[in-house]
């Protein structure tokens, strides 16, 4: 499953027996185990309230004060893309992208990252001057310019329209092939998971219920393999036939 280099298993993320709960009555994560190989793109799906975001926040180190236990190992450089772009409204786009970045070439790297996401020429714009999709692309540039070993994305395209979303899928796929971070993408959208991921993981009741590899020669939505996998995942999610 994980790639082997020089006899060593390159694992980016290792989670063992992870428990998290927000109330005494029941846990959100109940002994979850998960491995993500370096450079692997994993999509995390599941119904609302199954602990997808809780897991992502635990990996991001943003669940201070949440009750629970378990072991988490993540790479040193982790970057998070949120559902909202989270651009600082008082910083221009380039300053947002290079925010916290060290080195004298930060500006040049920021410009290059902006060009990669198709925002060359918008360096001095204020965030409010960008459309929702452009803001999310800037947020993506801010993550990628840090060359993370792990990219955590919490429904990053959830607030975008369908057309923009398709463009963002193509862009994200391209960027990940170029930069090869390990990716954990939380999504509600089964199609998005199949289009983007090497592996789809379905969370249910705080544990991994299904873990499937996406081995499709053709990822287009019209292909037979796509439809088959989609049907399988929707079955696993418990979506009724007539609602698909």
């Amino acid at each position, binding site marked *: 499953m994980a790639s082997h280099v020089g006899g060593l298993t390159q694992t980016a993320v290792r989670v063992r027996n992870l428990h998290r709960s927000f109330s005494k009555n029941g846990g959100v994560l109940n002994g979850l185990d998960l491995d993500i190989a370096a450079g692997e793109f994993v999509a995390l799906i599941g119904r609302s309230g199954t602990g997808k975001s809780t897991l992502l926040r635990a990996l*991001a*180190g*943003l669940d201070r004060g949440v009750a629970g236990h378990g072991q988490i190992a993540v790479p040193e450089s982790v970057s*998070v893309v*949120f559902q909202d772009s989270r651009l600082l409204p*008082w*910083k221009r786009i380039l300053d947002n992208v290079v*925010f916290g970045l060290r080195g004298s070439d930060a500006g040049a790297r920021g410009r290059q990252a902006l060009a990669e996401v198709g925002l060359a020429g918008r360096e001095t714009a204020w965030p*409010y001057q960008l459309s929702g999709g452009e803001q999310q692309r800037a947020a993506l540039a801010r993550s990628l310019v*840090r060359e993370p070993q792990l990219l955590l994305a919490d429904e990053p395209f959830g607030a975008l329209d369908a057309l923009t979303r398709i463009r963002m899928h193509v862009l994200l796929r391209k960027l990940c092939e170029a930069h090869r971070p390990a990716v954990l993408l939380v999504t509600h959208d089964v199609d998005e998971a199949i289009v983007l991921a090497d592996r789809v993981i379905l969370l249910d009741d705080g544990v991994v219920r299904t873990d499937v590899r996406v081995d499709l020669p053709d990822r287009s939505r019209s292909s037979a393999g796509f439809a088959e996998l989609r049907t399988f995942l929707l079955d696993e999610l418990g979506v009724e036939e007539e609602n698909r």
Partner: protein
Amino acid sequence: MTTTVHAPPDLEKSTDDRRVVRKRLGPGKRIPFAFWIGPALFLAVWAAGSATGVISPAILTAPWDVAIAFQDQWVNHDLLGNILSSLQRAVIGLALGVITGAVLAVLSGLSRIGESLIDGPIQIKRSVPTLALIPLFIAWFGIGQEMKIVTIALITLVPIYVHTHNGLRSIDGKYAELAETIGIGRGEFIRHIVLPGALPGFLLGMRFAVTSSMLGLVVVEQYNAVAGIGHMITLAEQYGQTDVIVVGLVIYGVFGYCADSAVRLTGRKVLAWRRTLED
């Protein structure tokens, strides 16, 4: 597949601008000379009242008599010196108050220990009238310049603290979360998120602070001052020179108005990243 494009026939070839326009609910575009209109109107009413005798000189000196008194003060009583010495007090006091207020607001805003140490005493200070503190300050600092500057600093510290603290605490928590994932230190967090985020609050505090520094001047210059606008007013009061008192009031008013406008203008420039009804 055939594609048909339906265009409303009467709109097709027209070159004039037709659009649907909704009624504006915000304040709309800026009007020219907005800075002058209100005060000019006020001056006009004052002048008209004095000229027609509705406002008798015993109640309020006519504007032209104020102008004559102004000239007399300027030529014979070193009005410029009075203005400069008041300005100096106000500026030094204001600077001390603003810096202290802002630093305390950041300390108390970012640390729970700082909050428990700082916030209480400042709220207590707020509820004690500064006028009532002056006798104490005289005992501590004497009746010289020190006491005056400390008083003005304390008066201006409070609005800066309250509004900066409020502005800081109103910063969306998700920006702090972002900063945590980016892995920056506290110093950078303060510089890039806390200070710019609290800036709108700070500037509002600044508007209160500049006018309250004027207020403080009036009070402190009644004590053993040898120069200053407050000193001039106190003397005029003793000699019953209403026109000189009004000269002093006009100077306070002009300074206050200019300082406030300067703060608002600065605010418009440095808060260009916001899209509000202000623009």
